[in-house]
């Protein structure tokens, strides 16, 4: 058979050389079959195409996540145990401060703390890691074409794995303290998890792209996360701030922080109580809004809706900024 190079640009008139479909025992390349797909490269942000590409490359997301985890804990003797150390320490410190020093009368305060922290950690881990992920992977970005959002989403993937480990520990805690979650409201948990995921993805993708151009973002994020943590009812119950918020008509503004209703839903389901009666007190202390699961479901619905919008928006921002990644890095 004649080689391709011997027939330069015969302008369509010459007979096409017959191309065998079986070459060297492998049946792979069939001209005209795999050519249906046409990739278009231009300066525009094609949101639909981006979503399709993300879906096609879901295997890559899993691999990137696995790589991150493997590299992170590869040479350490304790391995994944390290991922628990930080949350455990945070939990221990707040427990000491609130239970031992300020002597909060709230029963099973450790579980209460853990419920909010688990949700917060997923968000915090991912958002913090996402700022540096694109900058840190400059080598790949400059040389390989793939949906780069996946790098940011892989930080979410890593956070999910750590979340899963913490959830297991939380379940062990529940068993140790012989506490049961609110089984009737358990269906809220997947809803809250999805809301948390979508919102975290949106924030992570946005931050990862912006940090390429504004390297201050990573430092700013660290500080912002600290403030964000205290704006979210994790250590203190929502019930504590609710009267004050109501007084200044700030309740909805407070709940506009999507992590707040998400954390509250986690607490509502896992902690299982919306109020408790302190020893010697006659009126119950309110922890969470006393509404039924419907209210929480509605909140999660709103968060998912808004977060999906933010997710698409962050994809568009990422698409805009991505065009020059290879030269900016």
């Amino acid at each position: 058979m004649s080689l391709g190079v011997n027939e330069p640009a015969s302008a369509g008139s010459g007979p096409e050389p017959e191309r065998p479909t079986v070459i060297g025992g492998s049946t792979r390349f069939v001209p005209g079959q795999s050519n249906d797909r046409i990739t278009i490269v231009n300066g525009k942000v094609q949101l639909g195409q981006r979503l399709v590409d993300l879906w096609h490359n879901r295997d890559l997301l899993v691999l990137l996540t696995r790589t991150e985890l493997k590299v992170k804990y590869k040479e350490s003797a304790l391995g994944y145990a390290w991922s628990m150390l930080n949350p455990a320490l945070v939990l221990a410190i707040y427990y000491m401060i609130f239970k031992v020093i300020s002597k909060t009368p709230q029963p099973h305060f450790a579980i209460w703390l853990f419920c909010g922290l688990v949700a917060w950690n997923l968000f915090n881990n991912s958002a913090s890691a996402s700022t540096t992920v694109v900058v840190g992977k400059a080598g790949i970005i400059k040389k390989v074409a793939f949906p780069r959002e996946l790098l940011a989403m892989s930080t979410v993937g890593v956070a999910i794995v750590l979340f899963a480990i913490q959830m297991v520990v939380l379940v062990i805690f529940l068993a140790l303290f012989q506490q049961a979650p609110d089984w009737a409201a358990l269906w809220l948990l997947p809803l809250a998890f999805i809301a948390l995921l979508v919102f975290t993805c949106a924030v992570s993708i946005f931050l990862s792209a912006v940090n390429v151009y504004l390297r201050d973002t990573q430092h700013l994020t660290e500080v912002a996360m600290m403030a964000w943590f205290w704006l979210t009812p994790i250590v203190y119950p929502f019930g504590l701030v609710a009267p004050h918020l109501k007084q200044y008509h700030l309740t909805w503004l407070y709940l506009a922080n999507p992590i707040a209703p998400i954390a509250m839903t986690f607490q509502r389901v896992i902690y299982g109580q919306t109020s408790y009666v302190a020893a010697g007190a006659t009126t119950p202390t309110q922890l969470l809004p006393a509404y039924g699961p419907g209210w929480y479901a509605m909140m999660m619905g709103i968060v998912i809706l808004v977060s999906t919008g933010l997710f698409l928006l962050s994809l568009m921002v990422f698409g805009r900024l991505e065009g020059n990644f290879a030269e900016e890095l």
Partner: protein
Amino acid sequence: MTTAIEVREISKQFKLYTEKRTSLKERVIRGGKMPYTPFWALQDINVDINQGETFGILGRNGCGKSTLLKCIAGILKPTSGEIRVRGSLAAMLELGAGFQPDLSGRDNIFLNGSLLGLSRTEIAKRYDEIVAFAELEDFIDNQVKFYSSGMYVRLGFAVAVNVEPDVLLVDEVLAVGDASFQRKCLDHVKKFQREGRTILVVSHSTDVMRQNCSRVMVMNHGKVITIDEPGEGIRVFLADLLGVGTLEGSESGGIEGNVLAIGSVSAEHGGSGQRMHLYPGESLTITADLDSLAAVPNAMATIAIHDDGNELVFASDPDDPMCAIEVPEGGGMVRFHFPEVPLLDGTYSVSVGVRSATDTAIFDWKDQVTKFEVANPGRSTGRVRLPLDVSFRLRSASHTGEVPAVGSDPSPLALPGWEQSTA
């Protein structure tokens, strides 16, 4: 013939910041705008690359060829214009880009394959083939950071070619590994060509272009200079872009203290037409003006030719009686005539000198005073076109008749040291 890659009016602007300031403070101070100089790396590039074609992009460093390749690969986004790629595409811009040093070879195959767009099941299917191709069976579970650089690029190449794309983009990475692996790589490229896949190569090696490409695009300053067959494209590249004026003359100095001085030197080829380069085998005449204050009866003219790598190609015998000249007062012209120049592609510089025949005194020596260029329309490569005659005869005694070979040129796809039997 179907077009595999359509490039339509692609332009790419880079922003060259005078100093890289990306902190928020600076942005705020400057109201969000940063001073920059626009630099057009690509300007209105239009090209159609046919399916099954091996297309080369040739150009100097910084001419935009790699930028174009990155735009086609989707790594960079063009500022304006559109590129359409038919079928799957894999880019080999750097072998082993995206390898994680801390992971094993096995994990990296999956990661890299996935980055190139394969699904897990597809990689799993090709896994054994990739490992065998990279010749890393014994080390596949070792961390990549312990690999030698050769092993590293071998693995990178093995993954990239086993992706089996419809369109393969290659950026000067063909020369990896040891000789036997190189041969394997080129065999693979040839197999790609046979299978009708499209290959786009970026290189400044004219040899690679000449032997592998069906067409060549020459670029300069982000613009297309020409799209042509390799021979002509390479000639344009060498002549127009490397700034080597062919057959140029030179004006130079008068007499400074010496009795005899060389004036202008010019080169002229014996071929027909107005072209500015020689074809291999044509004649070449170098003429040098001599000025002399007094008669020099015992002078010897010498000439030397260097190639573009400054290696000496030829120097005349300093004691050859043929080179003896007798220069009268006032001077004259000395003519060096080569009836046949068997040199192949390249730019050659000519040095001319006049020395005394009786002692070691050198009257004048003009080092690399003029240049000439040889452009080879054929596909043979190297420095010299040696006269070649190829014939074939059967081994058995009963058949003694000679069968002439089909062509006297070596196989068009063969690089030196590569197997030529497939042609």
